[in-house]
Each structure stands twice: as C-alpha cells, then as structure tokens.
C-alpha cells in the first residue's frame, strides 16, 4: 500500500472511530434521559440451539 493510500485509510478509520464514539455517546444519553424503570430493553433470549439475541 503506498503512502497516500495509507494516509487515506488512517483518516477513514479515524472518521469511523469518531462516528462510532458519537453514536455510543448518543445511545448512552438517550438511555440516561429515561427513568431507570424504563431502561429495560437489555435482555437477550437464548436459543435452544445455542447463541442468543435481543
């Protein structure tokens, strides 16, 4: 990978990282705006064949 590509890739990854952090922050803040008794969408159900899902 030449130098210009490497720099572009690093910039893209940095932008993705910042976007991901921003989304996580918004997720947390939206939960904190709810009263605790409403923050209940967290349970994963197990499947008989293994694994689980929300």
């Amino acid at each position, binding site marked *: 990978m030449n130098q210009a590509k490497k720099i572009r890739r690093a910039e893209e990854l940095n932008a993705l990282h910042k976007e991901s952090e921003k989304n*996580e*922050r918004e997720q947390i*803040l939206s939960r*904190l705006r709810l009263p605790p*008794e409403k*923050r209940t969408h967290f349970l*994963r159900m*197990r499947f008989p064949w293994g694994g689980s899902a929300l």
Partner: protein
Amino acid sequence: MDAVSLLESIAKAFKETRLEVVLIGNAAAALDGAPVTTDDFDFMFRPTRTNIQKMRSAARLLGAALSQPEYPISKFYRMLNEQVGLQVDMMGVVDGVKSFESLRSRAGEVSFGSASLLVADLKDVIRSKKIAGREKDRAVLPVLERTLGLKEGRR
C-alpha cells in the same frame, strides 16, 4: 427483549418472600443507563440459612428450578425457568464487593409494578468487573466507564 415483565415477577417474588437482594452485573449497568445486554439477572444476597429458605420459596414463586452449580465450593445458586427465559444467579460473594451491606448502602431503588428492586451503583458494577477481570468483563468496561462519565456530567 424487554425485561420489564421478568423484572416485575422477580421483584414481586423477592418482596413476597422478604428476601433482601441487590441486582448487580450487566442488568444493573443497563438500568443505570449503560447500553449493554445480558441474558440473566445477577443478584447479591446474604446466604444465611433463613435467606436460603427464602430463596427456595422465591424460586417456587417464579416456577424456577434451583441449583447450586458449583457446590460445594461457592455460595452461588441459580434459578432457572427456561420456558420464560428466566435465569437468576444468586451470589453470596461478589468480586470487588466488601460486603452486602456496603453494596446495599450505595444501591438505588427501582420500581417494577407493585414491587421494587435495589440496583447496584454503576461504580460498584465497574469495580466488580475490574476485579473479576474475565475477558467478557474487560470487554464491557469502556462503555460502562463512558456511561459513568456522562452520568456524572463529564462530557
């Protein structure tokens, strides 16, 4: 999935049996605002003879089978009702927690239907996971710490 109906059943069962418990783990963290998930409910309790009897009664009320998976090496009990997707883990000893009383003193009360549950403070959940040090605990610490920071207004 919304845990509210299971939380109502669990809170009601502990209220009827008068068993004092504190919700810990990822369920507590989620109620404290962290965007985490779990497939079970972890509680700390004082494993006295009376409380163990109360726990048996609570398991019956929940239609759950009660077992002691690590008998005899630990004060850990499991209530399981697979039909409704209920797994409640009851612990007499928790990593990073000095005593039940200290955990309870910092816990907040959250209402579910006609009953309520004491939910561990997020700082206690974080400390416990740090001390436990399992890979799944370490993986979730950054988001818990971020949640604590935002709760405390540190943006």
